[in-house]
């Protein structure tokens, strides 16, 4: 039999949540195809689709029957004890006449040979479908009526047919009285009648006539195309929203796109408010004026056509959106009243609202962020500390607003709007608006120096705070989104090339948390030391004690961290380094390269650290780099072995008078020259030059090993040569711990 089958399955239920449909279709395909393949039934292609009510699977080029399989089992030797032979026969369900005895290198051995009949596609599919339905991996499933079966919502119909191009047959499946058929129904209200189908093409075509577009991508495309067309017919520009598009495509089987105009009384609402209101509550798209970006139209996707061309539907939706926008308008006007009284009400309220039980009020948090933001502004080119103070002070007031209470996702955005209304300068408004960014690995990173200052301050404060009360992320749990905050710090610093030492600022952030809340320095106190601070904390003397006797005690504690601050701050820095590793792996940097650099430099200047890592990664791509690693490892191995054997460490002090080969002389010359060049390049943070210089050592190192025996008879020469190796290791180690490099 050569004919191949097409399998069509449709599971029709009550409405499946939009967010689950795509994954469910994939799971359906995966489960069915793997069960079918396990039964040795081969197929050519499989595709799955979902609508709000259907999961559909089509498998083409399916074998009609699984092939016959010959199964062979080796048993005991023919001269084995009778007991062993009987046991084998019993297990195989055979008699002694039914087994073969073959000569093997180990003697005459019993073999049980069975031919497994092929099973029909009907049988295999029926079983696979029953198992799939009974064990479907819904994230949350339910029972209904008196059934024991679980599904995402009540399951009403099973269509399951096999067709070979001429005939169609129903695969017998019966799950709790739900019997597979060759028919289905159309759109729930436009075409609820039952109809029979013969194959997938027939099914898809008849569904279309029954007002159902099976393919979610086609529904999304239709929505997108029609929405753009409608918007442009009204000289408006559709605001793209891929997430909403995917969701809406999962809410309708027959998308009909309509557009309505937003009543003029709401046009003064900020665009983000309008968009969020309509998107969250109504699942509407927004269209704006191409020039002013003011939203003027809403676009709604209905699930049906109507005799009145959607007039009733549109009118109903318009009323609902008007009520929602009226709510938003009310919040906005109420909030603006507070803004016009210089935000007095909010400044008072923020002092009473708890940020976290153990971390005090939002007001206290704002004072810490303000102090940190000013310190950052002192070190970030282009950021003005006075502006940072102003921006940080109002960065969180929108949390007190009615609008953000209603739409928490508008935090920051509303703050920016209120700041603008209050007459703050553009950079301050931008800093308030964007200081939460980036919210994830794909979110845009702000590039305004002021925004960066406030954003870093906000994130460091939250990290230090939860660190201080020991609420660090553990395993899968990260309720306070601290990993995201750490990634935010990393991306802000790296993508804006903010080359600063973070540890002093982290120390300060901890000091603000450990002291009394009243001790957080005010702007005047910050100014008394901030200007000279950068010099004081220069990395040249990281451990020197700073005279802070005349300063605020919290500042003093941050400048000269006590063991508690030191320990916590070190721990948080390690966490940042760990997150940096994750970030760099995402950027396709080899993990051993990251490790090699991180072992050598625990730098709190992430820009320098990454520059070093990238330079090493570049070097590793060259032949020179690869060979240098080999040379280094050879040197390092010989040296380590000798040190273990001799029980002493060899310094890099080479006695030039003991040098007696050309290769040694060349190596000494190369090391002397490059050591200096490398140090200078490191001082300039020019890691690419430094790495290239190190790479150039490959040739003299190779020549040395080719021509010189390290472990010679002459003890003094041996010692001197070991020192030469130590010098190699020491020079390379200035840049990275190359022993960490794999391979």
């Amino acid at each position: 039999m050569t004919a191949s089958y097409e399998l069509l399955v449709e599971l029709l239920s009550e409405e499946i949540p939009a967010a689950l449909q795509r994954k469910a279709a994939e799971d359906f395909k995966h489960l069915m195809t793997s069960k079918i393949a396990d039964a040795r039934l081969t197929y050519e292609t499989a595709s799955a689709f979902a609508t709000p009510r259907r999961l559909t699977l089509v498998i083409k080029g399916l074998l009609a029957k699984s092939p016959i399989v010959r199964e062979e089992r080796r048993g005991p030797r023919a001269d084995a004890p009778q007991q062993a032979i009987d046991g084998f026969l019993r297990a195989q369900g055979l008699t002694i006449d039914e087994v073969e005895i073959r000569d093997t290198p180990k003697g005459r051995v019993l073999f049980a040979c069975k031919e497994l009949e092929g099973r029909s596609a009907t049988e295999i599919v029926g079983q696979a479908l029953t198992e799939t339905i009974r064990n479907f991996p819904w994230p949350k499933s339910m029972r209904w009526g008196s059934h024991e079966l679980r599904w995402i919502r009540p399951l009403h119909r099973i269509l399951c047919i096999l067709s070979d191009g001429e005939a169609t047959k129903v695969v017998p499946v019966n799950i709790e009285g739900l019997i597979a058929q060759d028919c289905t129904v159309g759109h729930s209200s436009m075409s609820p009648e039952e109809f029979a189908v013969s194959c997938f093409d027939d099914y898809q075509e008849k569904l279309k006539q029954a007002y159902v577009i099976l393919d979610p991508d086609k529904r999304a495309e239709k929505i997108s195309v029609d929405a753009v067309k409608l918007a442009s017919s009204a000289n408006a520009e559709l605001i793209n929203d891929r997430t909403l598009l995917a969701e809406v495509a999962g809410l309708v089987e027959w998308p009909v796109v309509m557009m309505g105009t937003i009543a003029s009384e709401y046009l003064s609402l900020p665009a983000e408010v309008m968009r969020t209101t309509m998107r969250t509550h109504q699942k509407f798209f927004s269209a704006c004026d191409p020039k002013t970006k003011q939203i003027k139209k809403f676009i709604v996707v209905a699930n049906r056509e109507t005799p009145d061309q959607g007039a009733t539907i549109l009118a109903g939706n318009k009323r609902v959106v008007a009520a929602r926008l009226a709510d938003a308008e009310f919040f906005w006007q109420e909030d603006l009243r507070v803004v016009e009284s210089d935000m007095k009400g909010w400044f008072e309220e923020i002092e009473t609202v708890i940020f976290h039980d153990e971390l005090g009020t939002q007001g206290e948090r704002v004072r810490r962020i303000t102090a940190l933001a000013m310190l950052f502004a002192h070190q970030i080119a282009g950021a003005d500390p006075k502006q940072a103070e102003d921006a940080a002070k109002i960065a969180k007031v929108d949390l007190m607003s009615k609008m953000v209470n209603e739409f928490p996702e508008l935090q920051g955005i509303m703050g920016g709007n209120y700041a603008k209304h209050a007459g703050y300068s553009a950079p301050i408004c931008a800093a308030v608006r964007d200081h939460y960014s980036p919210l994830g690995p794909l979110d845009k990173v702000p590039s305004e120096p002021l925004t960066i200052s406030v954003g870093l301050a906000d994130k460091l404060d939250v990290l230090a705070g939860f660190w201080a009360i020991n609420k660090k992320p553990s395993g899968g749990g990260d309720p306070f989104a601290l990993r995201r905050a750490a990634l935010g710090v990393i991306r802000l610093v790296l993508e804006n090339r903010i080359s600063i030492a973070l540890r002093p600022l982290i120390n300060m952030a901890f000091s603000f948390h450990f002291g009394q809340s009243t001790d957080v320095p005010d702007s005047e106190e910050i100014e008394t030391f901030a200007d000279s601070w950068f010099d004081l904390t220069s990395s040249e003397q990281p451990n020197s004690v700073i005279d802070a006797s005349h300063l605020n005690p919290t500042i003093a504690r941050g400048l000269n961290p006590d063991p508690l601050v030191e320990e916590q701050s070190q721990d948080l820095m390690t966490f940042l380094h760990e997150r940096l590793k994750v970030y760099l792996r995402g950027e396709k940097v080899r993990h051993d390269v990251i490790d090699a650099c991180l072992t050598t430099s625990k730098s709190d200047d992430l820009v320098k650290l990454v520059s070093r890592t990238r330079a090493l990664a570049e070097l590793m791509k060259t032949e020179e780099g690869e060979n240098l690693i080999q040379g280094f490892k050879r040197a390092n191995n010989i040296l380590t072995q000798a040190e273990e054997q001799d029980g002493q460490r060899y310094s890099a002090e080479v006695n030039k008078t003991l040098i007696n080969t050309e290769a040694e002389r060349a190596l000494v010359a190369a090391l002397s020259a490059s050591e200096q060049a490398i140090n200078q390049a490191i001082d300039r943070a020019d890691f690419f030059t430094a790495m290239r210089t190190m790479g150039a050592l490959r040739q003299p190192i190779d020549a040395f090993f080719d021509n010189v025996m390290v472990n010679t008879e002459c003890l003094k020469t041996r010692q001197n040569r070991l020192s030469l190796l130590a010098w190699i290791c020491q020079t390379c180690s200035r840049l990275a711990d190359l022993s960490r490099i794999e391979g």
Partner: protein
Amino acid sequence: MALPKSFQDVILRLQSYWASVGCAILQPYDAEVGAGTFHPATCLRALGPRPWAVAYVQPSRRPTDGRYGDNPNRLQHYYQFQVLMKPSPADFQDLYLGSLMAIGIDMNLHDIRFVEDDWESPTLGAWGLGWEVWCDGMEVSQFTYFQQVGGHDCKPVSGELTYGLERLAMYVLDVDHVMDMPFNDPKASVPLTYGDIFRQAEQEFSHYNFDQANIASLKRHFEDAEAECAALLDTISHEDDSEEPTILAHPAYDQCIKASHLFNLLDARGAISVTARQAYIGRVRNLAKQCADAFLATEACQEPVSGSTA
């Protein structure tokens, strides 16, 4: 079908419709509750194996939603229409759509959508899966398949419908402010609006809920209701063996409802901190759970015995 003319017309039509498909039309439960789900006809009867089919109006109290009668659609006292069918019929969605037609919603002109909305009542220890139903973008009902009540699996599963009557009627009657909605026929000899009947009470209760309710006595009442509930359930185990103990599931559940409402009042009064809130909810849930346990042991939850008389 002609459109309804008044709020009461919507209610009467829903009642006749659900009566016509076989539901017993009950009257509201005579206790202050936050939602129709608290009516023992739903909360207790969703448990156990026996079939059940009821529909009723339930006045519901949400003290925190009071707006002194000013807000177009927020009220501290409002009405829910509740349907509970056990086991949930296979055509429950169609029956529901029939009820919308009964109140004048033309299925050919409107866009009805079932949008995912899983239901959970932390105070009742109950949850279910379902949707909020949208009519042209407007939420008109909650549609839930009960999975658990009082921590017990529902077997069989009940289908529950909740209509927010004011909102639904305002939509059908095309009214923008709830207080302007005609309660009876506007052409009646004494035409009354919703505002005529409830505005003053909304104002008074908003003051009471937010400012006047006596926190100390509310707290005491809560403790009393909690203790009474526990005591009633406790009698089961201490009854002497001479006769079958009477399980006082309903009286105990009344105390649970009381405790729940007292908690809502305390909440509106701002007397409960964020952390204490969870503890209160846990205490009410604990009562609901024990009432459900007790109810499951009563006659109403035994397998129906066919053809035999006691």
